[in-house]
């Protein structure tokens, strides 16, 4: 039985001024799945996340989350919807003036009237899920990059969201932290029955944990498929990206006039 569709992106276009950044994007994301969006730097991946989160408005087309068109919601309605979604920022974006405990408790305190004893239990449960219950009284400055990312993950699941978006969750992590974060994303998605959208360019780590992959190149979806389909793909862009080849559809050289003419060789003057 097909699971419920949580996020639907339909004919989405987005431009910064005159410059088109995303063109004709279509995506369908089901509940309980981990979906990766991959592409080179500046390909529009993070912009796509911001469109899904309602931080920016598309030029045309729409994003539907839980049946609601995000950019048509009023601010109050958008904030209601955002209580069901979460975002893990690239470097965690923990509140530096709050302890680990208060960071995880932040959203619970802001949006509920639960007694402090219950908040304590909930926070410790969330921290236990990411293996950092013992670090609850540390300040963010005392955490390593991997630990900060895990605390941010605990904070993002504080209100049991339907959807979590991860913006480059693997950047700058050592191999152990990388595996830990990857496995946590998979385990938490399965345990909480939510949907995870992982924006990344870490191919090997993400192919281990995701259910479906979209490749974005030059603002369009260049390819999509399951991890197995992606590994075996002969599409030039996917092949170059997955195997990290230096040259291919994404060229090594920035466009320039002919080398010989730049060095003034063909005129015989040099």
């Amino acid at each position, binding site marked *: 039985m097909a699971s419920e569709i949580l996020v639907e992106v339909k004919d989405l276009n987005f431009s910064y001024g005159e410059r088109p950044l995303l063109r004709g994007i279509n995506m369908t994301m089901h509940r309980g799945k981990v979906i990766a969006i991959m592409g080179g730097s500046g390909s529009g991946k993070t912009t796509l996340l911001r469109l899904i989160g309602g931080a920016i408005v598309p030029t045309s087309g729409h994003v539907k989350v839980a049946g609601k068109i995000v950019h048509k919601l009023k601010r109050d309605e958008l904030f209601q919807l955002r209580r069901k979604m*979460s975002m893990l*920022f690239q470097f965690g974006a923990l509140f530096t003036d709050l302890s680990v405990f208060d960071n995880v408790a932040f959203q619970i305190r802001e949006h509920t009237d639960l007694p402090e004893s219950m908040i304590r239990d909930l926070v410790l449960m969330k921290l236990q899920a990411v293996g950092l219950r013992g670090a609850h009284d540390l300040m963010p400055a005392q955490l390593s990059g991997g630990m900060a990312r895990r605390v941010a993950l605990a904070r993002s699941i504080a209100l049991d969201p339907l959807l979590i978006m991860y913006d480059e969750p693997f950047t700058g992590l050592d191999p152990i932290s990388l595996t830990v974060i990857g496995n946590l994303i998979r385990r938490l998605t399965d345990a909480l029955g939510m949907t995870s959208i992982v924006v990344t360019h870490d191919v090997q780590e993400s192919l281990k944990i995701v259910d479906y992959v979209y490749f974005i190149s030059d603002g369009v979806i260049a390819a999509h498929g399951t991890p197995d389909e992606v590994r075996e793909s002969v599409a030039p862009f996917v092949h170059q990206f997955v195997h990290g080849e230096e040259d291919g559809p994404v060229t090594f050289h920035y466009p320039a006039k002919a080398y010989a003419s730049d060095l003034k060789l063909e005129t015989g003057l040099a």
Partner: protein
Amino acid sequence: MPRRIAIGIRGIGHRVIDSTWRLGYASRFFLLILLKSGTSLRRFGLVIRELYFTGVLSLIIIIVSGLFVGMVLGLQGYETLQRFGAESAVGTMVALSLVRELGPVVAALLFASRAGSAITAEIGLMKATEQLAAMEMMAVDPIARVVAPRFWAGVISMPFLAAMFSVVGVFGGYLVAVVLIGVDDGSFWSQMQNAVDFRYDIVNGIIKTCVFGVAVTAVAVFEGYDASPTAEGVSGATTRTVVTSSLVILGLDFVLTSFMFRGMS
């Protein structure tokens, strides 16, 4: 040549439009702070926490500066007044200078450089490290949760800091004039008591500090919120806070003084 003139005129036009746009943006931001102050009033603990950072931690610089300014006023006042045999009026001079002008203005300038710059840097860095964006994504409005409590804490603490500055300054004047130089104790205080009018001098001074408090804190939170999310952006915003708010304080002081004190007594 006409082309150069055209470019020059266009440049001026751009600057005027940019400045007007920024002024409008800042005014709109200020209105938003006022509209979204409900959270700060309902959860006053948020404001109290900021009062500690902006008010209590500024106390030391205010007290030390107030003491020295008062002591200098005592010395200079005595030096001038004794030429006319009016050295017993040194208390009046110290007190009036402090409550009318130096208390509000110098305390506000110190507040802008100590607390204003800290507010800008903190909000700017929160923006640069995506903390404000994270808050937005958690359905928590950063203007209500981060900006408004800092704004109100600044507005509340400014009059108290200026009052503290004046009180310590008067004490500094007393130390120099009475204890050090030997001006008569009784005439120092009684002349001060006679000359300083509560409504005319002290209330006007308090009004000034309130206006400066709003101006400095509004500039500080706006510059922080509007800062480019980079190291240069935050450092530039911090500098702008100190420069802009200092100029605003001095400009507003002239305007307020010209309305409040017009040679009447």
